[in-house]
């Protein structure tokens, strides 16, 4: 093949094949016709035709997050590219490797306000890790290979390659992927051994330690989760996960305190507040986690392991920063722990665990299912029980149902939980589930949804039908933008401004209209039956679970409050929380 001239479009497709791409999520248009032609003439890459470009990016995110491989998107210029922007921003905030190929008008038309022209590199610059405008077919192969390197290494993220139509026709020589040695981009993988030793000694001498770990552990690969589990068990210390980190440590383990943060558990947040050594691995101290910054874990020494140096000391100053890949650093930490024959302070640890068990006994996720109305917490705990042991994957939309899913579903393994954490994008879950199902055709893939979020990308049911993807939509229908309603109740005097969902469709008929199965459940006694029917029905199923309209998510650290000022379900009734003016302005 060497020296043989190919068209730019063929070069792109060949480069994707050589990068191991098996599937592309896309939507055609004028500016990508040559690329679609090249796709037509080959058999190694499968194309999934979405119904809106936004769906393509979320599908690629689901694919990427459940496989550890980059997700690939192909869209046309102008509106195709702008529709992809939300997904790119989502992937940037959650560090998901995505390659997004966008068509562009011909190079001589760029800047002319040509038909379907948009300044795609300009628009996507702040929502991508990097982006390229390829102006000649001879740069095509190198750019695609480099884009994969950038998207997948270091802190992963989305990369856009903008491809003017004329360059897709232009002929050039194809260059296979060589080992990319980028001139300027060289992410640090190995951690500094001196810092690691210092950290291990701090960890070993802690009296009230806690591991606080996030999505970085998942991004580092399954080995990182194994090593984390191993290290945490060696120490006997408690561990809490961020929303993005769920699954990096087995949820059923006694050392696991559940999720932390705004809707985290009582025990996790109190342990964070009172700890003397915090071991943060692959998490970034974001505002959902820390609550009021000046009251965040005031008496602890902090160790921060992160592959992105800009995450260090961004919000919270730390004592021992370690830049590098989580798996590499954990490996070193375990080695040092063993060679130094570290022994935790058993007496102190015993006392610390007693304190934690005290918090745990508060049973902050307790709920009572009584009366004729289904509690969303009940529906989700039944979903968890009835799917246990199955090869299951969960995605979510954004809202209360997402937080309940994080609280009541249990993750024993990484890559099984796909949720929009950083951007909080309603409409993420359904296309994401589609991407997960494409990657894992035989798995049980469930999108935990809310009726408002479901409406944001409902068109993807059509894609799901076309490819016979047996995705299950578990829709907690409270007829409200529940999370908005909750904030309005607690912070805005129960003035439910525009948060009630009028004129909802009949979701059962809607599912049927797309060709799938629609189920509805309104009776708490029939919840199990409905879930089993959803699982056992072949093909796509939407289960409309009609739940309590005014249930709130607890525990809750109100905006601007500290971790130890949490609201619990049983103390939140009556007057609303004291929220400062400053707190009110926080999202």
């Amino acid at each position, binding site marked *: 093949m060497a020296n043989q001239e190919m068209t730019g479009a063929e070069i792109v497709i060949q480069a994707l094949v050589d990068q191991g791409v098996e599937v592309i999520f896309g939507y055609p248009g004028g500016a990508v016709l040559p690329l679609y032609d090249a796709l037509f003439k080959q058999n190694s890459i499968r194309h999934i035709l979405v119904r809106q470009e936004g769906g393509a990016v979320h599908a690629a995110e689901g694919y990427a997050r459940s496989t550890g491989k980059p997700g690939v998107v192909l869209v046309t210029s102008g509106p195709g590219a702008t529709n992809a922007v939300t997904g790119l921003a989502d992937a940037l905030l959650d560090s998901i490797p995505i390659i997004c190929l966008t068509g562009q008008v011909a190079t001589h038309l760029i800047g002319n306000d040509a038909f379907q022209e948009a300044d795609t*590199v300009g628009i996507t*610059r*702040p929502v991508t890790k*990097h982006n390229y405008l390829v102006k000649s077919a001879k740069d095509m192969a190198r750019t695609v290979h480099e884009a994969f390197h950038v998207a997948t290494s270091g802190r992963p993220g989305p990369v856009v390659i903008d491809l003017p139509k004329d360059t897709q026709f232009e002929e050039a020589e194809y260059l296979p992927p060589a080992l990319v040695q980028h001139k300027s981009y060289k992410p640090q993988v190995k951690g500094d051994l001196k810092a690691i030793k210092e950290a291990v000694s701090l960890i070993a001498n802690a009296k009230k330690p806690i591991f606080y770990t996030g999505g970085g552990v998942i991004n580092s690969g399954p080995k990182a989760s194994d090593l984390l589990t191993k290290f945490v068990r060696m120490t006997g210390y408690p561990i809490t996960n961020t929303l993005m980190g769920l699954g990096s440590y087995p949820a059923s383990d006694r050392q696991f305190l559940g999720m932390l943060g705004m809707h985290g558990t009582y025990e996790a947040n109190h342990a964070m507040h009172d700890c003397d050594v915090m071991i943060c691995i692959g998490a970034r101290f974001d505002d959902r986690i820390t609550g009021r910054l000046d009251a*965040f874990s005031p008496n602890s020494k902090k160790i921060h392991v992160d592959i*992105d*140096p800009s995450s260090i000391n961004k919000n919270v100053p730390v004592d021992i920063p370690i830049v590098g890949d989580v798996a590499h650093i954990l490996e070193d930490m375990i080695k040092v722990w063993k060679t130094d024959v570290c022994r935790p302070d058993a007496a102190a640890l015993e006392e610390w665990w007693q304190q934690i068990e005290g918090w745990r006994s508060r049973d902050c996720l307790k709920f009572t299912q009584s009366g004729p109305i289904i509690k969303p917490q009940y529906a989700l705990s039944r979903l968890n029980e009835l799917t246990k042991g199955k090869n299951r994957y969960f995605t979510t939309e954004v809202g209360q149902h997402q937080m309940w899913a994080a609280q009541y579903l249990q993750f024993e393994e990484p890559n099984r939980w796909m949720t929009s954490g950083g951007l909080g994008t309603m409409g993420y879950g359904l296309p994401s589930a589609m991407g997960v199902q494409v990657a894992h055709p035989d798995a049980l893939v469930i999108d935990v949804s809310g009726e408002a979020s479901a409406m944001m990308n409902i068109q993807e049911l059509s894609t799901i039908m076309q490819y016979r993807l047996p995705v299950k939509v578990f829709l907690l229908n409270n007829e409200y933008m529940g999370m908005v309603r909750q904030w309005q109740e607690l912070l805005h005097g129960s003035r439910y401004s525009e948060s009630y969902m009028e004129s909802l469709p009949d979701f059962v008929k809607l599912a049927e209209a797309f060709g799938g199965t629609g189920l509805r459940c309104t009776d708490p006694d029939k919840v199990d039956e409905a879930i089993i029917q959803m699982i056992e029905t072949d093909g796509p199923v939407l289960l409309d679970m009609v739940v309590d309209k005014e249930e709130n998510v607890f525990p809750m650290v109100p905006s601007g409050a500290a971790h130890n000022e949490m609201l619990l379900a049983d103390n939140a009734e009556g007057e609303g929380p004291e929220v400062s003016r400053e707190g009110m302005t926080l999202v």
Partner: protein
Amino acid sequence: MIEKTEIHRHTIAVLVDNEFGVLARVVGLFSGRGYNIESLTVAKVDEKENLSRITIVTTGTMMVIEQIKAQLNRLVPVHSIADLTLDGPSVEREMALVKVEGTGEKRVEALRMADIFRASAVDVTESSLVFEVTGDREKVKAFVALMEPLGEVEVCRTGIVALKRGHETI
């Protein structure tokens, strides 16, 4: 934010690939994250490697300055960055062109001041002068301030360029 609130001014040098959009990336990063730019200069400095050097003077708390450097380092076309304020002694220079209008006593005084500042007149008409002045930002500022009452009508400044002192490079 838990931090010392004292504001510092730092001069940061950034070596970047001289490619399409790189300046937009740097400037976009500053505007997108709300960082200050007091001055910014950019030009190609290495023909062979096709590199440009950007010199940015910015202000912020130490935590913000550290963030700025980390964020700049994250940009793919950035080769290296240096905090010239932190890394030890550096030379900083700025050039300004200052147009002064006037005749008689004021004009004589302007020429006298220019002489003291080693500013040279690079354009002359019977009623106007354009001075070129070079120095650190304080000197340039002082010169412009002095020219104001003497008929200054227009100023153009290049912004700071800077190098480390001694044999060290960035």
